Structures are given as structure tokens and as C-alpha cells.
């Protein structure tokens, strides 16, 4: 008896194996590389090996010895020749602002000649070399493994003596952005529920022919390219766009009083609501379709008003759909990137856009990776909840 069962299990597992392997290599491994990037930053350590070795013995407060100045200057010179000094300087600069120009200026001031005193020459190039903070920044940037990207991602940092402290107020941007993303997602979920519930109810209770037609109206935007839908909103909402033209034409606003509806948070909210609304309507519809209209009729024949029947009989039965739709919209909103990037302007950006900024513009990949890991953990947690409530394999596509 046991043998055929085992071979059936093996056969089933063998069928899934190619895809498991493929997902492992092309998806899980890339996610793993994000995790590695978020804690592993070897570039400075590789660039300044001797300086960092000599800094290990340094007490962290006094002005370093002549030897250490010479080692650092020699390594700077080497990096400058290899044209790598700029990227190393950028990394040190993230820990102590001003260090980028300090390092580049120092390398230029030292030139090719060997001075009598490296210490005097470097302090002459930039007095900050006489302070411990410059050396501490170099030492900390040289840590191969670090948790500072995670600290920075939640607006914390280490001070000179290694204590965890809050960032100065003007640099606390990530936690507010995270809360803004959560807030926007919550608002969009609630709006989608308010807009979607009556529509789902209408579709679920219409005659089959009408129900199919109405469902089609929900599915068409669902299938239409995200970029097309986002473009449409720009066309509709921009200053010289259809909505503003219409408002001017009917005299609600003057030609000078055109409202900024796009390239700000309004644009993000409107476009994302329209794009995510089908994800709310479809699960609601699926649940409502299975609720027999007999229940409401029974309630009304027992003397309940429509409102009573709805609140006590209908609404409780739709809760699984409400939970599924709201959670799905919330999860999708948290990770939204394309729409805020195109219609959000400066004020309508979400956490994903910050990750993209650090990936593509500031090139602070470690911080981008740490923000990505935090976002991923949050989304995974929400999916666990979704899985318990709805079942992830029951996610419907149409």
C-alpha cells in the first residue's frame, strides 16, 4: 500500500519541480540578492584595506598618527588613478555630509608630490582631517556588514560613539513616507469599498444578461493596460485637460482658476482608485452572487425594513467579500509604483517611488534594498492574513 502512494507523491512533486526550480533561480534568488545588498556593502572596505586595518587600532577620539595619514593619502592617490575615488567618496559622504568634496579636494591638493608631513598637508587641504569625525566616517563606511541601511530606513542613525539616535528632523523622511503610504492605501481601500459595494450588489442581483453586460464594464478597465489608464487620467485631469475645460465651460471656475488635479496627491488618489476598483468589485460580486435573495425577502416578509434587512441579514453575509476585496486593494496600493510615478508629481509619491529613486538616481542601493525588504515583509505579513481569510489559491483572475 505504501509504495504506490509514495510513487504518486513523487510523481506529483516531480511535475512541480521544474517550476519550483525556475521560480527559485529567477525570482527567489533575486529577492535574496536584495537581502544581501541591504546588509552587505564591501566597496569601501575593498577600496581602503590598509587604512581600515590601521584604523582598527585607533581609539576613535584622538587625531590619528602620521602613519595613518600617509596610508590614507596613498590609498586615495591609488583610487584617484583608477577613477574610483568619486564612488568611494560618495559612500563616505552618506555617513558624514561634506566628506565627498573633502576627499576629492584632498586628493587634488596632495597631487603627485610626497609632502614632508602627510598630516599637515592633509589638514591644510581640509581642516576636517584634524577632527575625529572624518576618520570615524571612513571607518564606519568601511564596515562590510552593516545594519545602518535599516536604521536609516526608519529614520535612525548611529552617532559618533555608536549609539542609536534619531536623524535630525530635516532628514526624517522615510517613516513619514511609510505612514503616508499606509494612509493613502487605507483611504483608497475605503473609497473602493464605498464605490464598489453598491455596484457589486447591482451586478449580483441583475438578470443574467444584464449582469454579464455590467460585469464586462468592470472587466474592460481591468484588462486595459495600466499605462493607458494612467495616460487617460493625465489627459482628463491636467490643467488644459478635459475636466478643467469642462468646469471652465460651465462656469464653475474661471479660466485663471483651473484646479491642479494631477501631478499631486489628488492625481494619485483618483487614478489609483479607478485602477484598483475592479479588484474590489470582483471578490464582492463573487460573494454576493452566492447569497440567496430569499434571505432578504424572508426578512421583509417578517416585517423588517430594507435597512434592517440589509444591516442584519445581507451585510454580515458579504463580510468575506468585503475583507477579501479591501485587503487585496490595500496590499496592491502599498506596493504601487507606476501610477504615483506618472501622475503623483512631488507630493503624491509612495514608498515604492522612494525605492526607485534610490535605485536609479541617488544610487544608494543599500538603502533602496533595506526599504525594499521592509516593504516586502509588510506585504508578506498582509498576505498571510489574506491567505487565512480567503485562501491565496482561491484568488480569482476574472
Amino acid at each position, binding site marked *: 500500500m505504501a509504495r504506490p502512494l509514495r510513487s504518486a*507523491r513523487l510523481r*506529483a*512533486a*516531480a*511535475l*512541480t519541480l*521544474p*517550476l*519550483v526550480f*525556475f*521560480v527559485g533561480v*529567477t*525570482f*527567489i*534568488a*533575486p*529577492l535574496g*540578492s*536584495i537581502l544581501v*545588498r541591504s546588509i552587505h556593502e564591501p566597496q569601501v572596505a575593498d577600496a581602503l584595506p590598509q587604512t581600515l586595518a590601521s584604523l582598527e587600532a585607533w581609539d576613535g577620539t584622538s587625531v590619528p598618527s602620521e602613519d595613518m595619514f600617509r596610508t590614507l593619502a596613498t590609498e586615495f592617490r591609488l583610487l584617484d588613478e583608477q577613477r574610483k575615488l568619486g564612488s568611494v567618496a560618495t559612500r563616505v559622504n552618506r555617513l558624514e555630509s561634506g566628506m565627498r568634496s573633502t576627499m576629492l579636494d584632498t586628493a587634488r591638493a596632495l597631487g603627485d608630490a610626497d609632502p614632508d608631513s602627510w598630516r599637515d598637508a592633509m589638514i591644510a587641504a581640509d581642516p576636517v582631517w584634524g577632527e575625529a569625525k572624518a576618520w570615524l566616517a571612513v571607518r564606519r563606511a568601511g564596515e562590510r556588514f552593516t545594519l545602518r541601511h535599516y536604521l536609516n530606513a526608519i529614520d535612525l542613525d548611529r552617532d559618533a560613539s555608536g549609539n542609536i539616535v534619531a536623524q535630525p528632523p530635516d532628514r526624517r523622511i522615510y517613516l513619514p513616507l511609510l505612514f503616508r503610504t499606509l494612509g493613502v492605501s487605507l483611504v483608497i481601500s475605503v473609497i473602493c469599498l464605498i464605490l464598489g459595494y*453598491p*455596484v457589486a450588489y*447591482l451586478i449580483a442581483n441583475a438578470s443574467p444578461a444584464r449582469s454579464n453586460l455590467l460585469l464586462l464594464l468592470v472587466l*474592460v*478597465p481591468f*484588462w*486595459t*493596460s*495600466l*499605462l*493607458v489608464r494612467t*495616460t*487617460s487620467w*493625465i*489627459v*482628463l485631469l491636467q490643467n*488644459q*485637460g*478635459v475636466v478643467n475645460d469642462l468646469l471652465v465651460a460651465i462656469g464653475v471656475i474661471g479660466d485663471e482658476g483651473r484646479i491642479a488635479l494631477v501631478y499631486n496627491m489628488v492625481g494619485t488618489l483618483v487614478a489609483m482608485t*479607478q485602477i484598483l476598483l*475592479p479588484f474590489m468589485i470582483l471578490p464582492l460580486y463573487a460573494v454576493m452572487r452566492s447569497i440567496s*435573495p430569499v434571505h432578504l425577502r424572508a426578512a*421583509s416578509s417578517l416585517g423588517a425594513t*430594507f435597512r434592517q434587512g440589509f444591516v442584519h441579514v445581507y451585510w454580515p453575509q458579504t463580510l468575506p467579500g468585503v475583507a477579501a476585496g479591501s485587503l487585496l486593494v490595500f*496590499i496592491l496600493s502599498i*506596493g504601487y509604483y507606476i501610477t504615483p510615478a*506618472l501622475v503623483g508629481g512631488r507630493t503624491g509619491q509612495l514608498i515604492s517611488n522612494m525605492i*526607485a529613486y534610490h*535605485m*536609479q538616481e541617488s544610487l544608494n542601493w543599500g538603502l533602496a*534594498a533595506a526599504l*525594499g525588504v521592509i*516593504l*516586502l515583509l509588510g*506585504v508578506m505579513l498582509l498576505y498571510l492574513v489574506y491567505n487565512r481569510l480567503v485562501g*491565496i*489559491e482561491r*484568488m480569482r*483572475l*476574472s
Partner: protein
Amino acid sequence: MRQSMASFGFGERMGRGLHLAFCAAVLIFLIAPMLVVIPLSFNAEPYFTFTEGMLSLDPEAYSLRWYRNVIEDGIWQRALGNSILIGVAATAIATTLGVLAALGLANPAMPGRGFVTSLLISPMVTPIIISAAGMFFFYSRLGLGQTHLSLILAHAVLGTPFVVISVTATLVGFDRNLVRAGASLGAGPFLVFRRIQLPLIAPGVISGSLFAFAASFDEVVTVLFLGGLEQRTIPRQMWSGIREQISPEILAVATFLVVFALLLLGAVEWLRGRGRSGAAGGE
């Protein structure tokens, strides 16, 4: 429904009217944005709004110039070529691997089904910016940055969950006795698959692959991260158009994509109808 409504009074009937009006407004909100794009793509002027000529239905105000520009533009031609190449290759990989995996997952003997399902669906539920960033690190380390191959692999893995889900759905009502019957009559596993299982799951396979293709055809973030100039696809070209110099050519392309979406939707709905009648016939 109508019966139950009759028993309610005037107030309820007014409520029903309000409900219908509200639903109409929401449905217009859902559909209208795409509908506005279509007439504007025929605008003779380079504006994104209806000109007076358009509103008075003056034929002079309409033109096919933006369509001509797009069709004649080598950049859009190459973008279409890239989109099709990457989409078809990615869909072929996703469909092959996805169908096999769905067959395994549908087998009651499958060990660790919950975990494996979550793993296989994870590409669909991970925020795209994270997937794209990870793939960027991963493929540039492998020396595959800015290649078609990296994009094909990326779109393939992002498309597999659609195939797994829709094939699994068609297998839910599948009677495993048919497999046993086939096997007892001497058919090997491959013959059983080809003659019994494949015809029954075909609608799910095709609609899953259409989903995967549509996902690839609309995907822009991995192209932003992994692709160079040579790998620009239609969505990537639209992205530049929207960000840099927004021109009505974008609306012509958008209209084309709306038509394309309608065709795909029609195909999937038709297959769904067939799948239902097929499953009913099998029972």
C-alpha cells in the same frame, strides 16, 4: 429581485433610483477615462482636449496623423517587435512550466501543497518595484543586464502564477478516475495527459497563457530596470512619452492597446464559457 422590491414602499423605490444613479456614476468613472482617449487620438491638433471643431463634429478637426506617425516611426516599430518577442518567449516558458506544476498541484498526493502554491504564486503578489530591483542586482551580477534574455526570464516568472492559477481552476472539477481508467486500459502517463487531461484543461491553459502574455505586454518596471535602448517595449516607450514629451501619438498607441485588451478579454470570456460547458460535459 423585482418581486421583493414590489413589497417595499415609495421610499425604497426612491432608494433604488439613487442606487442605480450611483452605480451609473461609478461605472462611468471606471470606463470613461479610456473612452475619452479614443476620440482624442483622432484630434488634428496636438492638444489633449476636445477642440471646438471636434465638438461640432467638423471632419477637418479629425485626422489620422498620429496613427500615421506611430506606424511610420521606426522607434515604435522596434518597440512592438520587442514586446512581441519578449511576450511570446516569456509566455511559452510560463505556460510550459505552469501547466506541469498545476498538474502536480492538482494531484491529491502532492506533498506540501500549501507551501509550494504560495512559493509559485509569490511573483504575482510581490510589489513589482522589489522584484525589479532584485532582478537588476541579480542579472547585472550574472552579466545579463540589458539583454533580451533577462527580460524574457523576468516576464516568464512574473507570468507563471497566472498560468498556475487558471489551469488549477480548470482542474478543480477534474475526475481523477478518468486518469485511472486510461492507465488501466494501458495508456502511459504521457498518452493519458495528451488524450484525456489536455483537452479538458485546454481552456484554462489558453486563458492562462493569454493572461501571461497580457501581463508581459503591459509590464514596464522590469524593462526600466533590466532593459537598455535595444530592449525598449511598447509600455517602455509610452513611459518615456508620458514622462518626457507627451504627444498625441501616445493616445494613438493607447487606443491600439484598448482594442487589444478588448480582444483578449473577449477571448478569455469565450474560453471561460467553453471551459464551463466542457467541465459540465465531463461530469
